[in-house]
């Protein structure tokens, strides 16, 4: 066993390790793509994969990207360093940005629908990050509110008319 009592690595160390893992992965998969650390804000590491083969790593609804992001997180942290938790945001070919834009559009148009009909609207299951985009988009909407229900991976958002208790 190699259970040395190593010092807790800093977020910067872990970010470098995460990028090295993604780079090695892309190389081992013989993909024509480049990997770069775009930012490190607190414990959030943003890593972009770009190039000819980057789109292979997206998958339907970003499934492949989510899987890769999860693997890289476990490879980097080994579920250790509890308090020094790292979040890795992996993007390929600008997918996350496009997806965020389309989720915000969807949120607004469903909010309009709920406003018009007075009936709740349900969005297909989204991952935690995607749900957060929708919740955030509608948090200040005076007429509707949002909540999540169900268990992963079926957890989804419901948009309802805002209750006028006051």
């Amino acid at each position, binding site marked *: *066993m*190699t*259970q040395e009592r190593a010092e807790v690595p800093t977020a910067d160390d872990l970010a470098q390790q995460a990028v090295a*893992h993604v780079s*090695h*992965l892309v190389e*081992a*998969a013989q*993909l024509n793509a480049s990997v770069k650390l775009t930012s490190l804000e607190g414990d959030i590491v943003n890593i972009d994969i770009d190039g000819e*083969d980057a789109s*292979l*790593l997206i*998958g339907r609804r970003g*499934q*492949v990207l989510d*899987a*890769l992001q*999860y*693997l890289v997180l*476990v*490879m980097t942290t*080994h579920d250790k360093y509890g308090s020094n938790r790292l979040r890795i945001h992996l993007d390929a070919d600008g997918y996350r940005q496009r997806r965020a834009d389309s989720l915000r559009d969807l949120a607004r148009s469903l909010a309009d629908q709920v406003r018009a009909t007075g009936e709740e609207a349900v969005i297909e299951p989204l991952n935690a990050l995607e749900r957060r985009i929708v919740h955030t988009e509608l948090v200040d909407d005076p007429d509707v509110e949002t909540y999540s229900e169900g268990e992963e991976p079926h957890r989804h958002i419901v948009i309802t008319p805002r209750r006028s208790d006051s």
Partner: protein
Amino acid sequence: MKALIEYIVKALVDEPEQVSITEVPGDEATTFEVHVAPTDLGKVIGKQGRIANALRTVAKAVAMKDKRKVYLEIVAE
């Protein structure tokens, strides 16, 4: 593909020197047997198979480049 799986698995386990990947070619799909130390089984499978499933998802996606199908089997040595 073998190199990719090997790289990921070695980074996940406590005993990377005990990792070996066997490639079993088939007509339609290639099966990769991932051999790890028994104590590392959980590290490769994960809670409710989450890690193993993520590994399969990534391997399948990369194999699509060569229009191949891949299966992964995780085996304790």
